[in-house]
């Protein structure tokens, strides 16, 4: 048990516990914050895997963008309060969902970690980000451009859906 192991366990525990709170807590704003903490933990995991660029990208995309979007959505829907204030947070199939989850977890844990992977010990190239850039306009040029189109589609679609028409209905000033 070295220091690295302990750090890994700490971050794994943070990630998993806050993920658990995220899916179970009643207050949606708290759930969003737990999600942020959990995604932080994932970023730390990336950093431990020497994926420096991805760790920072994870922080920017998830903590900076997706988390803000989710918190905005929570606030715009008034915490999902709906008409009934004290509504159940889980649906009627919650029990079934738990069974499915446990079965999936059981299968995954039985199968995935104990396969004998051809682990290769090598240092990460120092110019990995540069290689990534070259790959994006080399091998991955098609997905790269398709990603751009996907982003365009998401932008236009989301603006079209989310925008309020000028003669909006019961929109309070805010």
């Amino acid at each position, binding site marked *: 048990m070295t220091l690295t192991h302990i750090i*890994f366990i700490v971050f794994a525990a943070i990630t998993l516990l806050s993920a658990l709170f995220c899916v179970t807590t009643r207050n949606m704003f708290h759930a969003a914050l737990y999600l942020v903490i959990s995604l932080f933990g994932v970023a730390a995991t990336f950093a431990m895997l020497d994926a420096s660029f*991805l760790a920072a990208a994870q922080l920017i995309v998830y903590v900076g963008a997706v988390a803000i979007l989710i918190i905005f959505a929570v606030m715009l829907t008034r915490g999902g309060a*709906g008409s009934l204030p004290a509504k159940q947070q889980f649906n009627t199939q919650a029990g079934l969902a738990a069974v499915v989850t446990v079965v999936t977890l059981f299968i995954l844990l039985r199968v*995935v*970690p104990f396969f004998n992977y051809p682990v290769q010990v090598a240092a990460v190239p120092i110019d990995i980000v540069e290689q990534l850039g070259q790959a994006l306009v080399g091998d991955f040029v098609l997905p790269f451009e398709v990603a751009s189109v996907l982003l365009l589609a998401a932008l236009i679609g989301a603006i079209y859906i989310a925008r309020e028409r000028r003669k909006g209905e019961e929109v309070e000033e805010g």
Partner: protein
Amino acid sequence: MAIPLSWYLIVAAVLFCIGIYGVLARRNAVGILMGVELMLNAVNINLVAFWRYLNPTDVSGQAFALFVLVVAAAEAVVGLALIISVYRNRGDIDAENINLLKQ
């Protein structure tokens, strides 16, 4: 490399299952979306861990993780826009009540 690969895979598997539970059991549509984000993150942990342990000199693993990141964000952008729109029209984002197409 002090930490075995399987540790990362276990963390990813558990995170994935927590995400599944969130997606299946939450009533709140935003909560369901959070579950999806957790699942996508679990996938990314797997991708990066496999990249690091199986082929660290090739960038494909990182590139894939990057594309997953994009798809996740695009999905969140559009999904949340839909939820906001539903809330505006119906005043409720309980996934069990969004069933206009069933009736």
